[in-house]
């Protein structure tokens, strides 16, 4: 290859637009005659709807339509099941999908009951106050264990209880492992996660063009193609009649791929019915109730070890809050179940989970997507085991790491992509060694911590391992074309929410075609440009769309060289492709630009050879047989104020292996952002619910996100074990940073305050100064 673009810290192609305030976000779409929607939402977690009176709202000047469930006619039906249950023997899954507008009963605070469409957002919100709903409150289901008690109120009255799903998976023989164990560690853990809180809330603009018979929808979705296909089916339109654009999106992190949100079903429907464009932009209060969360799990786990601290087996049983409906299937608990095995050689595993309906907002994957919960359980068990066996916490991990010669490592159980969980490649000991060196582990134990303790300061260290299944199928595609201008365009079906696809994918194209990265124009998330694909989730964009882009660009490269060889009447082997042109090796003055070749490949006169395709263009698809497994180690040194219990992070080290690195600058950003969200999860963010299902802290003043004062400077290191599953050797990196931080905090805080010596362990996340005070002072 003449020039190397992959692996360079290229600054981003998309930044100039974003920095100048010229990038189009959904709320920036302004159309002539546009109407504005607002939603009346349930104030109750669980209630019967006796009546809905919208007469006064309809009479308000400026109101164009008020829509209830009854007004939807045949369009009213539960949304589709986004992810079906996996092919696991004995799986129980009770499908109860969300509805566009509540009819007869509301099952969580924020569930939409009516939609107002008006000449302005202000009028639409005024009219919400005109609607009178007669609710008869019902007892709400909140606490996970209480939800399963006999006689508990039921979220769905047609079901016998609140169990949404039950899945058992096993490898090896845990009972036999337990019988010969020298040591057992049994613990109960509670791991709660919060809301993703992208800085841009959700929003949709829909416009029906009656002359063209086409619907255009701008949507803050992470999966524009799937939304397009679903909308066409629901609205009785051909897929070619619907264009979905996911323009610049202000952060996604998972919840922007839940589909269909009620508003996503209703706003396009209203635009069609009313013949005018309709916009809905979620406000921040709505976002807390109406956009999906991740939430709590309760684990009862047991680790069986031999006398040397080698893991013989793990048994885990957990409950998971899935909210009022379960359209996203079992992705989150399956991730927890699978990721618990982490980077360790665990011969026997027995796991059962039950997903539980509650009268709360729906749960769907949020960055990490349940992996945090599994990592927390296994890492906490190992910390406890190390103490009880008198082993160093690093040593017990090292003894159990999967060695480099065991890959591909087969875990036997089924992962979220329905393929058997298999780790493609890795060198976990190398990660651990690098982290130990970077955090100066031995020096911390022998010098720093004793010195601090002597000074009365509470300094602690945390070091934990994690893996992340990334880059899953089924597939993505890419279309690469050389334009007559010499620029190269790339279109793909994934959406982008800040991951740098406009740059990273351009680097992959530039690598093949010898052009400047700035001369590759990338389009993502516009179904008129490319309409095959699945979406941006599971740390898969750069892996799966990246591989498709590579294949398409390589195919165009072959066409370029063939065309140039014909032009120069020479052998392809004699050609050099670089700097946007093809030249003959050793004769640089004999050159032709890619733009000229593109023009020659699309002639207006003359015969072409049979079988020839016009232009310099190729479309390719890539579908991996299974996901690629990234891994890493995080380590930190923390100081906890003994009075306020406020932690200060002194050093934070990330060692990460995501295979081939496409752009180290963008990778660093992904990891740092993930760690920041992990810190939020570990110590700042908690959704606080009242017993009757009210969310008590639904504002950014009460639900605390980490600020620039809370997220430390991080030290990043990489190791590279390329994935054999795709041509570039990449593994995903989007979620990794967020995954191990809860486990890391728990260990570091225990260490800082020397809690185990007082018989206290940290068995829950999130923490906060006040919660930590309760734990330290025996508040359980």
């Amino acid at each position: 290859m003449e020039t190397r673009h992959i692996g360079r810290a290229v600054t981003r192609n998309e930044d100039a637009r974003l920095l100048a305030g010229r990038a189009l976000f959904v709320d920036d779409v302004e159309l002539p005659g546009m109407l504005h929607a607002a939603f009346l939402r349930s104030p109750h977690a669980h209630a019967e709807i006796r009546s809905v009176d919208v007469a006064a709202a309809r009479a308000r000047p400026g109101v164009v339509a008020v829509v209830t469930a009854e007004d939807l006619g045949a369009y009213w039906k539960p949304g589709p099941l986004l992810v079906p249950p996996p092919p696991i023997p004995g799986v129980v899954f009770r499908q109860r999908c969300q509805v566009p507008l509540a009819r007869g009963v509301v099952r969580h605070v924020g569930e939409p009951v009516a939609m107002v469409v008006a000449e302005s957002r202000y009028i639409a919100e005024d009219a919400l106050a005109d609607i009178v709903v007669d609710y008869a409150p019902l007892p709400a289901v909140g606490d996970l264990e209480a939800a399963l008690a006999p006689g508990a109120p039921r979220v769905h009255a047609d079901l016998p209880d609140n169990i949404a799903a039950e899945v058992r998976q096993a490898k090896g023989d845990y009972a036999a492992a337990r019988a010969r164990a020298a040591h057992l560690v049994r613990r109960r853990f509670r791991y709660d996660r919060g809301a993703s809180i992208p800085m841009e809330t959700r929003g949709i603009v829909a416009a029906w063009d009656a002359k063209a018979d086409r619907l255009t929808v701008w949507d803050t979705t992470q999966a524009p193609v799937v939304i397009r296909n679903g909308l066409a089916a629901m609205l009785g339109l051909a897929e070619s009649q619907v264009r979905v654009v996911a323009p610049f999106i202000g952060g996604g992190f998972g919840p922007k791929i839940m589909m269909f949100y009620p508003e996503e079903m209703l706003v396009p429907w209203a635009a069609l019915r009313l013949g005018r464009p309709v916009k809905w932009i979620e406000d921040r209060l709505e976002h807390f109730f109406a956009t999906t969360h991740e939430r709590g799990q309760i684990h009862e786990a047991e680790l069986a070890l031999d006398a040397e601290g080698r893991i013989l087996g793990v048994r885990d049983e957990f409950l998971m809050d899935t909210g009022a409906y379960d359209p996203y299937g079992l992705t989150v608990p399956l991730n927890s179940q699978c990721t618990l095995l982490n980077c360790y050689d665990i011969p026997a595993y027995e796991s059962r989970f039950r997903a539980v309906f509650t009268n709360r907002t729906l749960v769907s994957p949020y960055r990490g997507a349940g992996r945090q919960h599994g990592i927390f359980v296994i890492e906490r068990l190992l910390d406890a085991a190390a103490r009880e066996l008198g082993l160093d916490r690093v040593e017990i991990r090292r003894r159990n790491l999967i060695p480099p010669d065991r890959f591909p490592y087969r875990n036997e159980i089924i992962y979220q992509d329905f393929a058997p969980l298999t780790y493609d490649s890795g060198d976990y000991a190398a990660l651990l060694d690098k982290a130990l060196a970077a955090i100066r582990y031995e020096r911390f134990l022998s010098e720093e911590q004793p010195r601090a303790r002597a000074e009365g300061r509470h300094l602690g260290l945390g070091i934990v391992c994690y893996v992340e299944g990334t880059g899953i199928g089924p597939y993505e595609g890419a279309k690469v074309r050389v334009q007559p201008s010499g620029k190269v365009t790339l279109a793909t079906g994934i959406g982008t929410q800040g991951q740098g696809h406009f740059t990273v994918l351009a680097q992959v194209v530039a690598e093949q075609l010898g052009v400047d990265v700035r001369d590759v124009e990338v389009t993502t998330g516009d179904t008129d440009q490319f309409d095959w694909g699945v979406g941006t989730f599971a740390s898969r964009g750069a892996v799966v769309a990246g591989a498709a882009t590579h294949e398409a660009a390589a195919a165009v490269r072959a066409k370029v060289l063939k065309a140039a060889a014909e032009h120069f009447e020479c052998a392809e082997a004699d050609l050099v492709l670089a700097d946007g042109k093809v030249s003959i090796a050793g004769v640089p003055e004999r050159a032709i630009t890619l733009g000229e070749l593109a023009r020659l490949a699309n002639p207006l006169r003359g015969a072409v050879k049979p079988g020839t395709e016009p232009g310099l263009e190729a479309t390719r698809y890539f579908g991996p047989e299974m996901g690629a497994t990234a891994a890493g180690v995080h380590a930190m040194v923390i100081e906890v104020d003994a009075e306020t219990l406020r932690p200060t992070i002194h050093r934070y080290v990330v060692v990460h292996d995501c295979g081939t690195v496409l752009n180290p600058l963008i990778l660093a950003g992904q990891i740092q952002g993930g760690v920041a969200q992990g810190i939020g999860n570990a110590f700042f963010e908690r959704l606080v619910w009242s017993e009757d299902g009210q969310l008590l802290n639904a504002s950014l003043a009460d639900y605390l996100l980490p600020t620039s004062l809370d997220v430390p400077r991080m030290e990043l290191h990489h190791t590279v074990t390329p994935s054999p599953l795709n041509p570039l050797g990449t593994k995903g990196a989007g979620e990794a940073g967020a995954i191990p931080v809860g486990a890391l905090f728990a260990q570091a805080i225990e260490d800082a305050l020397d809690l185990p010596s007082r018989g206290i362990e940290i068995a829950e996340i999130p923490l906060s100064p006040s919660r930590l005070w309760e734990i330290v002072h025996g508040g359980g």
Partner: protein
Amino acid sequence: MSARVAVTVSVNGTTHRREVEPRLLLSDFLRHELGLTGTHVGCEHGVCGACTIRLDGAPVRSCLMFAVQADGHAIATVEGLAPAPGRLSVLQEAFRDAHALQCGYCTPGILMTVSAFLEETPDPTEEEVRHALSGNLCRCTGYQHIVDAVLLAARRLREG
């Protein structure tokens, strides 16, 4: 609906006159009346800082003001930062060079906060930068590259 009120503001040096409802937020006025959609709205309760603009030079949250309150004042928004179309200011360039933005939604507010901060504090420490940024939430970056970008911009501005 209440009677409309005349508002005259200067935005990025251009004078605009509109008749608006008294309850219209300044953020909505800028975005939807004037079409200056570079200013973003993240929470509408004054916490996230995405809607930060400069009012007579001071960084303020445009979601916490009514448009009528801005009558007679001079406003600066992100659209006015670049020295010319197709070019970026020193601050904007530093954000690109340090990869200080990912989704870019919080970025305009952060640029407005920082542009005021660097005028008052041309040679800041990292600690001062972090304090200056602490009223603007970013969910993507973890702030480290933003801090780097502000320090880089400060150095370049000092060095001219």
